[in-house]
């Protein structure tokens, strides 16, 4: 692609737009962090980083880039896993993380209005202090809400509550030409033309830059009880999941986890997990307004699990007990990362009744390709997270085996009518797999949408469908 080479003059112009030297980082002042995301193997430094404080600043920088044909990549806290925030064509990185104010809590409309740099953990803490609830709950709590919106993050409560998209009511967006528009709003219903805000959600910063979000809230459930259920084998555990779903009880989360990953988390956190009798667990969470209400649904599930060979059913009914389990669960990704030299991930999603097949398949690939694969994930919504680990393999061997294992997993997911990504997105890293997975007609429509938003192709180019 033919972009203007970013030079000293551009830097000076942008510095003039922002008029705060400390927030415009050029060349050697650019921290290494800006060259990659959480996964780290796709690397490229931008020419300049602009830490913005307002939609107006985003708009002015975007307009400058538009007029001068310079690529722009927006970025939150850089916790992404597919390279979406890596500026592969260099140019400008707009760092949104300083736009981090919670603007309004509207208790009459049950919405909260936030800037995109608010961290997920800040948001949930804030609304819960007001007895309200923002259900999307991805493991990475230091992600920004802007990043969550741009990947349509899912998380652990998706089984009952849905994903980020289900909680976005309205967005303020800076378009690639610099104009500021609003999509959606505080309205509950909206049939007014194409749903633009839904298009922005999950667009990975390729269509516009989100500068404000109106999010939908729910009343905070008063009580949550988790069940940690040890099974004799992973197969026993996973095969129970469709039966739980079929029983019409609705847990907020159904996760599966294995002993090895739990041990990694124990080491990573320096804290023991409350059980160690088994190699495979299901972790279920129920919420509601009273213990009685919750008990009624978990009695049924407990029976199902015991019939399927569960070794026991352990109950976490206090904050301390819930913490001892969920803190470990939340640390899995970091813990696995710390246990190896390099890793890559697969975030496929399959129909829920196929999740056991997918898990068992990826498990068997370990022996087939002689590579360590650790998986955990949202058994209840069919979203599998499998991490392929490099360990001591040579670069060459690693590339080879990684390609084979990845290829097989995505192929299997397609066979099971699944999708390439459940919640991490496509970014740069998963483009080849999206290309194989979607029909050419669909990809063509996606490219058309991209063109309609960004005719000069300057906003996060080379990502998703390009």
């Amino acid at each position: 692609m033919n972009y203007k080479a970013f030079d000293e003059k551009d830097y000076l112009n942008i510095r003039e737009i922002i008029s705060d030297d400390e927030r415009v980082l050029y060349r050697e002042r650019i921290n290494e962090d800006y060259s990659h995301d959480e996964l780290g193997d796709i690397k490229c430094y931008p020419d300049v980083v602009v830490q913005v404080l307002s939609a107006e600043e985003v708009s002015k920088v975007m307009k400058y880039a538009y007029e001068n044909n310079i690529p722009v990549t927006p970025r939150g806290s850089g916790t992404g896993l597919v390279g979406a925030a890596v500026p592969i064509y260099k140019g400008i990185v707009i760092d949104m993380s300083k736009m981090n104010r919670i603007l309004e809590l509207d208790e009459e409309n049950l919405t909260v209005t936030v800037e995109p740099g608010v961290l997920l953990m800040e948001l949930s803490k804030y609304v819960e202090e007001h007895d309200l609830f923002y259900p999307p709950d991805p493991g990475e709590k230091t992600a920004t809400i802007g990043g969550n919106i741009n990947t349509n993050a899912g998380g652990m409560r998706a089984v009952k509550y849905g994903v980020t998209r289900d909680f976005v009511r309205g967005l303020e967006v800076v378009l690639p030409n610099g104009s500021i528009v609003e999509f959606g709003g505080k309205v509950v219903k909206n049939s007014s033309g194409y749903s633009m805000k839904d298009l922005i959600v999950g667009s990975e910063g390729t269509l516009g830059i989100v500068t404000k979000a109106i999010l939908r809230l729910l009343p905070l459930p008063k009580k949550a009880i988790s069940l940690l259920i040890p099974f004799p084998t992973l197969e026993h555990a996973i095969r129970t999941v469709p039966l739980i779903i079929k029983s019409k009880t609705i847990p907020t989360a159904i996760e599966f986890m294995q002993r090895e990953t739990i041990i990694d988390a124990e080491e990573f956190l320096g804290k023991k997990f409350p059980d160690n009798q088994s190699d495979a667990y299901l972790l279920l969470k129920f919420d509601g307004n009273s213990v009685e209400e919750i008990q009624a649904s978990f009695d049924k599930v407990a029976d199902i699990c015991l019939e399927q060979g569960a070794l026991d059913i352990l109950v976490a009914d206090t904050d301390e007990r819930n913490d001892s389990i969920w803190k470990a669960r939340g640390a899995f990704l970091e813990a696995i990362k710390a246990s190896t030299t390099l890793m890559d991930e697969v975030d496929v999603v399959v129909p829920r009744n196929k999740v056991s097949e997918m898990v068992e398949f990826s498990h068997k690939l370990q022996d087939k390709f002689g590579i360590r694969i650790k998986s955990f994930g949202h058994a209840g919504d069919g979203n599998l997270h499998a991490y392929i680990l490099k360990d001591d393999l040579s670069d060459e061997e690693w590339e080879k085996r990684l390609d084979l294992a990845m290829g097989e997993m995505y192929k299997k997911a397609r066979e099971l009518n699944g999708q390439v990504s459940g919640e991490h997105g496509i970014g740069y890293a998963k483009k080849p797999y999206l290309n194989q997975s979607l029909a050419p007609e669909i990809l063509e429509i996606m490219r058309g949408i991209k063109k309609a938003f960004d005719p000069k192709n300057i906003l996060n180019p080379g990502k998703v469908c390009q």
Partner: protein
Amino acid sequence: MNMNIIVCIKQVPGSNKVEVDPVTGVLKRDGIESKMNPYDLYALETALRLKETYGGTVKVISMGPPQAMQIIREAYAMGADEGILLSDRKFAGADVLATSYTLSQGVREAGEFDLILCGKQTTDGDTAQVGPEMAEYLDIPSVSNVKRIVSVGEEAITVEMDMTHTVEIAKVKFPCLLAVEKDIFMPRLPSYVKMRETKDKEIKVIGFSNLKDQDEKKYGLNGSPTQVKRIFPPESNSKRELWSDSEEVLADKLFKKLKEEKFI
């Protein structure tokens, strides 16, 4: 060897967000759920581990109103063998001293024991005194701040005490009382299967009339030298910082602080 272990447990409010009514000075307990004192879980876990290694029995004992049976059921679901509830109107209003005395009397009714385990403190009273005072009444040695069991012998148990700046190792002769630290072992979760199995398991209730010492002056409010005058919520703790420096430095500092706190 077989160890007979008694674990002292207490029912406390389920949340640490219990408010005090500023007018009446009474804790607003309405609608607040209760749970086993989190520190006691470490004592119970320690007992269960010792039993698993050396054999024996684990008895739990609690003092409280009839609804405190709930935490004894919970202890059953974690693996306790027997449960005793000290419950009587005459025990009500007890301070640390009367509570310790009542518990020590209850323990005498619980049969032979080698070891009494207590949590470090409760989350509602926070005194950390009941354990050691009980040991005084029972005339047995006691060690607090136990963070690790070093070894268990026929005659004595060796433990590590966390004294903040030093670690002390003590060998204590049986029978004795230990108050354990948080994180000595990660407490297990209650088992739903055990909960079902022990649904109808007996809980021995001991009242005033069952105790040896029939002197009413030693129990409940009568036996409590501590008189609570007033309970009130602490003043809300707004953040305050005092700086002194040159104008320029202060302005800069203030600006940075306001920015950090997201006021500007």
